[in-house]
């Protein structure tokens, strides 16, 4: 009987969306800081520059990952564990989806400023 790791997997799955959100947040911030330090991007270049392109790719990859998880969730609903009641399974399945949607919105919300200002100004 090894219920420990299994329940950790279930808890992680509920949080999957937000874990990806966190990764996106950290990578956007870190990638941006390092990018502007290593590459000299003049303000006049506007949005056509390698740093903005890199940030858009980072954001797009994370959005793609969230969409992939959402598709998987709708195609393969969470299965019940041994001795688990149906309401518990339903709750966790619902949570997984809701958290994924919130994370998707959150990721788009923190990423869209990338498309509004030249990156390294100020």
């Amino acid at each position, binding site marked *: 009987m090894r219920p420990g790791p299994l329940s950790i997997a279930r808890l992680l799955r509920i949080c999957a969306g937000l874990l990806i959100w966190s990764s996106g947040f950290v990578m956007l911030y870190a990638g941006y800081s390092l990018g502007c330090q290593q590459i000299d991007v003049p303000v006049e270049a506007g949005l056509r520059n390698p740093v903005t392109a890199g940030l858009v790719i980072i954001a797009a990859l994370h959005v793609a990952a969230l969409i992939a998880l959402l598709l998987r969730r709708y195609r393969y609903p969470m299965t019940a564990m041994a001795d688990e009641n149906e309401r518990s399974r339903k709750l966790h399945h619902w949570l997984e989806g809701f958290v994924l949607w919130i994370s998707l*919105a959150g990721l788009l919300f923190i990423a869209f*400023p990338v498309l509004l200002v030249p990156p390294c100004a100020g």
Partner: protein
Amino acid sequence: MALLVILTASACQGPVSALDPAGQGAADIAWITWVMIAGTLFFMALMTGLWLHAVYRRSDRPLKLSNTTVLVGGGLVLPLVVITLLLVYGIRSGHSMLPIGAPDLEIRVTAYQWFWEFEYSDDQGRSLTLVDELHLPLGQRIDFHIDTADVIHSFWIPALGGKMDAIPGRTNTLRLVPTRAGQFGGQCAEFCGARHAHMHFAVTVHEPEDFQRWLDTAFEDAP
């Protein structure tokens, strides 16, 4: 009520008031401040009203709205719309205050425990250092290059715009554009030890010609 309005309006005046702007940045911020205060009052009234209605309503019947409507509407849609509008505005407004493009005047600011040094220089190699006293020309883009000799301080002239910290090992740049001539106050905004409270400086905004005249005389007088 009218008395309150008058009181509040008079309370906002002052040589160091962010709500009595005399600079481009400060005017922008003062405007959005009033908008956001209005928004805050509106939402406080809304939430208080909803709560009082929910607790003290006469009828025992549950509300007609479905729970999902309440949660989606109030919990998701309403805040999302408001913060999106606010963020887009903030991005544009903040961007406009950045030191982008060549400035008309550059001043080196060095913070010490517990006074300010302002250094003017021109292309003829003349330079001038003032302590706790700042003179600025009206309508020009002025870049302050801010540095510190000891601990962290923060350079702030509320009537002209936002503040900028002075951090050891770095030089930060702040752009201000005065739009009204007169006497204003500046001060250190980051706690910096014993005499933090006394780290004020005086700011005078001159008409451009007056400023040039002042600067020329000051360069002459400088040792």
